[in-house]
């Protein structure tokens, strides 16, 4: 009975987050209905999480102790005010209509198999997450421990944590918010956040794949192919790590910017991408450089393709850049104000032998089915399928982002200050997670390859958005 009540409170807390994000979407999107309901749900949750946790950081800055009323009251007030604007009212009434007359899914044949596989996975992941206490290493050493301390001390108290104080705090603050909703530290129920986050990531991938022009069956197949390939994604569905949220924010930012480059993005997508870049920077220590590479890849793609209005489009990228600053600067300012020690030990020297070793490990991780199954080899095939279009379409953006980050991983290992004996275990403990940040975005590239495999370029593409599209591939 108590657990059922707690579950209701947890669901209420998660729904409030979506409500907050949904209000934000109503404010930043000229026409929220241009996004499908599943997309809006997935995007709302991430936006709400970023806004709420930044608000909690602001509360600490002002010296106000956490409490559910103070955390949620003003945030929901802002969301309600946003819903009262004409744009917000339109979005809300449209959503309520859609809820009243939901469309039937109308699955057929293979669709049922893919949907069944995903349903089985999430049944297992939800039970595994919510029925076992927090147990994985980083979950209790860092993210969960911080969440517990923040809840018990009613603020961002870092005095009793002696390691990784400088890590960004989106995930611990979100978990502590859930503890406030639950009324106590209940780490097994709060862990239910992670399968939900995984489901939203997959919902986002499915929606982006549909926007790429894939049929429902192929998009569903691609989603199942990402979720059920290797062990890494599955395990991260039920452990309290920050890597799955970072992968979610990365997919959102990369997908929206790709659609914007391809002229297929709904209006307001860049503003949403900015929120997701903020989420990346505020989610994990690796987030800000990863977010910077998203913008860098977009700049390089525009510079290479030179579509009409290149300069105007380059200037538009200042919006995602502002998003990155929004996620990065508040925490950096807090760190300097509190005189927290930064992890400067990460960069000391360049070690060529580590580069060679890391290259071998990276290759193995990409092709060994244990980690990501056959997804990365399939991505390589997708790049081959994209072929020469790579140089003439925004597919270049995805390849630059993924290729650049694979090189960045090698470089990061080459400068890691570890002993020769320690290096293999250091790589083993981190490489799968670094690849997880990129893998959903890699699945997007796979989707693009599938599109080119299935049909001649240019046919049956989704209708163009009001933006100027980049050049279509030469026929």
């Amino acid at each position, binding site marked *: 009975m108590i657990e059922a009540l707690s579950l209701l409170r947890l669901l209420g807390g998660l729904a409030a987050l979506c409500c907050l994000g949904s209000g934000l979407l109503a404010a930043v999107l000229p026409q929220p209905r241009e996004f499908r309901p599943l997309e809006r749900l997935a995007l709302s949750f991430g936006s709400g999480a970023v806004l709420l946790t930044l608000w909690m950081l602001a509360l600490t800055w002002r010296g106000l102790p956490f409490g559910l009323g103070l955390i949620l009251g003003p945030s929901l007030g802002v969301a309600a005010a946003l819903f009262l604007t004409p744009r917000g009212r339109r979005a809300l009434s449209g959503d309520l209509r859609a809820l009243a007359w939901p469309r039937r899914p109308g699955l057929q044949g293979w669709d049922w198999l893919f949907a069944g596989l995903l349903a089985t996975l999430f049944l297992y992941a939800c039970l595994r997450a919510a*029925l076992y206490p927090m147990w994985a290493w980083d979950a209790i050493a860092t993210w969960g421990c911080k969440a517990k301390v923040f809840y018990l001390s009613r603020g961002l108290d870092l005095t009793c944590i002696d390691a990784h104080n400088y890590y960004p705090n989106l995930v611990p603050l979100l978990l502590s918010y859930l503890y406030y909703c639950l009324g106590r530290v209940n780490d*097994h129920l709060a862990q239910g956040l992670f399968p939900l986050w995984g489901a939203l990531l997959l919902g986002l991938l499915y929606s982006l794949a549909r926007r790429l022009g894939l049929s429902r069956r192929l998009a569903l197949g691609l989603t199942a192919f990402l979720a059920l390939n290797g*062990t890494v994604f599955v395990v991260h569905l039920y452990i309290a790590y920050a890597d799955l949220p970072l992968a979610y924010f990365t997919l959102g930012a990369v997908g929206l910017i790709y659609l914007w480059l391809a002229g297929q993005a709904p209006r307001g997508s860049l503003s949403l991408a900015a929120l997701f870049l903020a989420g990346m920077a505020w989610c994990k220590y690796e987030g800000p450089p990863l977010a910077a590479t998203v913008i860098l890849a977009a700049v390089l793609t525009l510079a290479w393709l030179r579509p009409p209005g290149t300069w105007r489009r380059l200037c538009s990228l200042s919006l995602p850049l502002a998003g990155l600053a929004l996620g990065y600067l508040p925490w950096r300012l807090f760190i300097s104000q509190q005189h927290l020690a930064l992890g400067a030990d990460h960069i000391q020297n360049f070690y060529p032998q580590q580069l060679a070793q890391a290259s071998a490990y990276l290759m193995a991780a990409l092709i060994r*089915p244990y980690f990501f199954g*056959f997804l990365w080899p399939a991505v390589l095939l997708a790049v081959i*399928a994209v072929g020469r279009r790579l140089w003439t379409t925004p597919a270049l953006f995805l390849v630059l982002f993924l290729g650049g980050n694979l090189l960045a991983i090698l470089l990061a290992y080459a400068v890691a200050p570890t002993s020769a004996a320690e290096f293999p275990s250091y790589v083993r403990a981190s490489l799968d997670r670094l690849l997880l940040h990129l893998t959903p975005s890699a699945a997007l590239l796979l989707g693009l390859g599938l599109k080119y495999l299935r049909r001649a370029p240019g046919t049956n593409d989704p209708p163009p958005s009001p933006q100027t599209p980049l050049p279509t591939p030469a026929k």
Partner: protein
Amino acid sequence: MLSNWKAHLTRILLALWGLQLIWLAWHFAPEARDLARRIGSGEVGAAVRQEDPWYLWSASLSAVIPPDAAYVFVDNYEAGKDIKIGYYLAPRRHLLVSPQSPAAFLFHTLHEEQAAYLIVRDRAKPPGPGVQAALRSQAVLPLKIPGPGQAYRVDYPLFHWGFYD
């Protein structure tokens, strides 16, 4: 339509994925069995943690150590117990010191960090030089809390430390 080689390649990839799905089911089967057993017996959630002797011991310790106190935990990081005890005893301030640490370092940590408790991970193992020296001093008093390790109350102002060892 797909050309022949592309269709073959897609079929091979799908077949490999099918095998992968079977392997995944086999890989996660032990965890799934444990999950099913626990659901059947109702031993889920907080009950899982009750099976951990470290949790039970930590619960006894948390009744003794005030939430605003600091403690030194003597263990190697690699053993993994340090993060467990740190999590269970949070928000108490947690300081990790290696069992091989010399007395001066342990005394310095206890004194400077005002750590009122000393916890040794393994009570069966002979203590390291730092803990041995602390036990010989008048500043450490063992607590009678049964568990896998040994906890002590520390009168940290009594520790005088310096580079004498």
